[in-house]
């Protein structure tokens, strides 16, 4: 393959757009995204793609295999020069008779706004009871550079998850660890220093001030479905939200966030720090040990919020934002845009784990509207969409989608305009256009952050094997006797 320009004589017109993989047609891209390398699926013996826009030199890419790998520098120059404009991909295919055919151009749009420069994600094979390789990685979105932040092999093949940040800033990072050898705790990295907190944080939301974090504790259980598309299912037999203050190194449990008769999870702060949004559902089973719990398929979470006064460290009363009764669905994973305007969440038929629910779709609520109108985003597919995050300028979202067949989660990026309309999403670009065709791992929990994580992987690795430097007392005790877990889905204290 070469990107040297080749001259083409007469061309037939195909009269249609080419078929390419991944689908990078009609998408809106940031100027600082890596090249959208793709593969032309229309049969031919040679291919020429010309990428052009109003300003700047067109990029010509020639290929014999159909794989189009766009030069990085030229790509960025072209996109940067054409913010707010369309770019066109003119695809030409030479057939066996050496006749060139030109397809209708693929039109994409370059947004004015950039996307955050780094994506942090969890990378692993579809998870059942056992695993071997789980890692949290960071990827520079302007190119393809990917590096490990922390891998399970650093601490005896353990599991790690629930990475979260303060806003979209990379300075503060928390990651939860689960390890039979080194214990289940949480790493807190701040300005390059790593502490190990002797508590297992679940889903975590940092207050914008960075002074405290609200995290869930979940008695998670996994079970399976004898039939149907998705084999796995997850239920929280019990859950609650706790609040950890960094300075005091203490955990507290506000009453409304740890109701014994309800399941609280998925905290999310408003950007001004005045409200904590979270999901809450009534516990529909008497026995909190039986798996699967009775009525597991009737659990539907409400979306609630509770006021918080940071100056006085006081909590208000919980209030309903959107009820499951109103929607008939389970409302999960609230995330508020950094400008405070929109609330992005997902809804599925039941339960607490949307990534295992093909019915899970993304919705957006306009918090500025009087009646909190919400609508389903057009980015959804027939499979699960979930694990979404905002960029710091509130114009981009990254989310997990299983649209490639229903099993493998990939990260998609979508532009959200000022009216809350999400544009056609595109899969995270890769150097190899065929990368996703045989990728057995999933990209999970994509988080957009404004820059690379500075804490060194070796420090995180050392901390993952060290003893806790902070051991806050947990204000909630479990009703069931403590027992060593036999699998990663069982809660440990």
């Amino acid at each position, binding site marked *: 393959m070469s990107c040297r320009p080749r001259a083409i004589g007469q061309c037939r017109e195909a009269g249609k757009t080419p078929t390419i993989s991944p689908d990078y047609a009609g998408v809106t891209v940031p100027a600082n995204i890596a090249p959208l390398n793709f593969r032309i699926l229309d049969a031919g013996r040679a291919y020429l793609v010309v990428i052009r826009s109003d300003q700047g030199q067109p990029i010509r890419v020639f290929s014999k295999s159909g794989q189009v790998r766009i030069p990085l520098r030229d790509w960025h120059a072209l996109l940067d020069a054409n913010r707010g404009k369309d770019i066109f991909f003119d695809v030409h295919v030479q057939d066996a008779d050496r006749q060139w055919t030109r397809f209708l151009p693929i039109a994409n749009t370059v947004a004015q706004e950039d996307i955050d420069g780094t994506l942090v994600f969890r990378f692993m094979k*579809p998870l059942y009871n056992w695993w071997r390789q789980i890692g949290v990685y960071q990827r520079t979105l302007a190119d393809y550079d990917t590096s490990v932040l922390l891998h399970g092999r650093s601490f005896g093949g353990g599991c790690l998850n629930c990475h979260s940040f303060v806003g979209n800033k990379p300075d503060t990072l928390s990651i939860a660890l689960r390890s039979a050898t080194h214990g289940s705790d949480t790493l807190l990295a701040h300005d390059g220093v790593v502490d190990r907190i002797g508590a297992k944080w679940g889903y975590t939301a940092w207050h914008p001030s960075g002074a405290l974090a609200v995290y869930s504790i979940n008695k998670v259980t996994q079970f399976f479905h004898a*039939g149907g598309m998705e084999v796995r299912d997850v239920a929280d037999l019990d859950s609650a939200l706790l609040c950890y203050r960094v300075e005091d190194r203490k955990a507290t449990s506000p009453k409304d966030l740890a109701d014994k008769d309800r399941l609280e999870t998925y905290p999310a702060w408003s950007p001004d720090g005045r409200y904590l949004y979270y999901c809450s559902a009534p516990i529909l089973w008497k026995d909190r040990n039986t798996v699967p719990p009775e009525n597991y398929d009737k659990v539907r979470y409400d979306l609630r919020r509770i006021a918080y006064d940071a100056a006085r460290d006081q909590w208000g009363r919980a209030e309903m934002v959107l009820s499951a009764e109103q929607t008939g669905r389970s409302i999960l994973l609230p995330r508020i845009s950094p400008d405070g305007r929109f609330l992005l969440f997902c809804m599925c038929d039941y339960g607490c784990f949307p990534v295992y629910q093909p019915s899970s779709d993304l919705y957006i609520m306009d918090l500025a509207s009087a009646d909190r109108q919400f609508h389903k985003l057009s980015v959804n597919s027939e499979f699960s969409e979930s694990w979404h995050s905002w960029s710091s300028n509130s114009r981009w979202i990254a989310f997990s989608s299983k649209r490639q*067949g229903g*099993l493998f989660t990939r990260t998609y990026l979508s532009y959200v305009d000022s009216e809350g309309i999400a544009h056609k999403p595109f899969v995270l670009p890769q150097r190899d256009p065929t990368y996703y065709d045989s990728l057995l791992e999933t990209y999970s929990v994509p988080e957009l952050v404004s820059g690379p994580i500075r804490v060194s992987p070796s420090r995180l690795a050392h901390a993952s*094997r060290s003893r806790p430097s902070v051991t806050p007392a947990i204000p909630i005790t479990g009703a069931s006797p403590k027992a060593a877990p036999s699998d990663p889905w069982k809660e440990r204290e």
Partner: protein
Amino acid sequence: MALRNEDKGVVPESRNRVPTSDLLTFSPSYLLFFALAFVYLWLAVEPHLIYYSFGTILPDAPQFAGGWAFLRDCAGTPGGLVAYTSGWLSQGFYRSWLGAVEIVLAGLCIAELSRRHLARAGLRRASIPACLPAIAMFLIYSQYKHPLIPCLAVSLGLLLSLVFERWALRQPLVRIAACCLLAAVGFCIGGGGTLLLFVVLTAIWRLLAHRDWLTTCVALPAGVAIAWLLAEYAFLIPGGQALASLAPFSPVLMVGMDTPLKVLMCLLYAATPLAVLLALIGRNLLVRWKHKAKPVAKKTKAKDRHIPAKRKTAPLWAFAKASLSALPIALMAVGLYLGRDELRKPYVLSNCYSRQGRWDRILDLNRRLPKDRNNPFVNHDLIRALYHTGRLPYDLFRYPLNPHALLLTHEQRESDLTQQKLCNIFLELGHVNMAEKLASELLATKSHFGPALEKLGWISIIKGHPETARVYLNALRRDLVHRGTAESLLRGLDRGFTPEQAAYFDRIHSCMWEQTTAITGTEPVDETLTALLERNPHNKMAFEYLMACHLLTGQVDQIAKNIHRLADFDYQGMPTLYEEAMLVYYGSRQMTVDLAGTGIRPETFQRYLTFVRVQSTLQPHNQQDVLARLIRDFGSTYFFYYSFGRVGLQ
């Protein structure tokens, strides 16, 4: 480099140089040993049985997939490149002859490197002791383990040590730097095992042959420290864990090995360093002794002058020489004899046959097995073979049985082998989601596993998820052995499947559980099988397995409850074991049997009456005789099994 005082026992460097002819000489017996080893490995061990054990019976066997991504992942851990190479070579085990060639070449490599070390240490006839690591390796293979990774790690350590010795660097700083570099390279490529061997051998050479305390005390610890730092900061794994990787004391390396095998594994690592150590010590002592004995030696030489030279080549010496040459073969034979286990090969053979669907072979194998022992996995394969040959409701009790064998319920935590076998049988039964779960778990715990990928490809097609199937099959295309299957299925997705493939999909699909019933995977066997029958009453496998479950657990009432299902199938009359179970059922309730109505044959009924009559004569004084008669005449019937809780086998 001029050495110091010979009186101190330091061997002059000129003596460190071994004549090229010695380095290149292969004695005929040396080659004969490896030739015989090849024949034995090829025809007796049959390495393709080891291939079929990869990932299951040998859960930590190295995997291999083509492409840069897999290579990059392997290179990201210490010893990963050796594992990668081993994985690539292991694909050759698919063909027994090729696997035998690879094993012998690996043995030759390690033997040759050992021989060069020993020759350099002054042992002129070094071939024999040099064979010890190869002997250890071949004996480990005879036990159906797979020590290729440690063999390569050891070979690399031997090679690096030889290279360092050959360099003969004069400058201390350069020597230290070279030592550190080789240690780091060895660690990255071959893990802690290579590093250990390199460090130990280099220390032995440096101290005993060169009196080089500087290298021993500075460079070697520095090399280990560099490896530690690489582990902690480059590979991001604990230093201790990294240094133990591929080392003889690593628990991963010794998993599933009994004490004799562990000893052999240690011998693989330790034989050459020990031999070099002894050779150098012996050489140093000899030099000292010769120096002290010089005047005496002159006198003895005068005496010896009159001894005819011919006496030194006496027949005794030739016999001793021949015996020594045959020693490797003798050691190997003794090792094979001491380690023999008549059940070891059948175990892996059964696994291989079941993977290949060679059901008749499994039945033949089980007929030859000792009657007083059984293995749940072999039993499981047997039951499956009986089903596929149409003999399950007839011949089940002709073999020793383990009730857990049906769906391998004997383990608290499912082993990889259990997962694979259950995946296969669940797929056949139509329990497709559980098959998917098991295959996915197998895949999640391995970097690459062709059989699981293949199963997941089939499952995704059956469930109507072609895009997911493509991902699995595209990944499977990187598997050297399974590539053809992947391409066939991908072609099928694009252009249509063959009639056989389509028939298979249709059959499984017709049995597939469709309701999204929540399960944990620990449901009772009969409950699962009954649910599958509810889904499709014509699921013959589920029916026969359900009945087998009831037979094995003595639930004759359940046999009676399900006997009506025979009408859903094409049996020519009621199968014998079901007849016998029904008679037991009627007998236990003292019910009258309407032969015509029940479909039980009169001869079966007569046999039952005879059994009952003979059994009723059982008394303490004639127990042996009556039992012997019952075993002879009714040992393979359900009557006997139900009465005595076991199969009556002679």
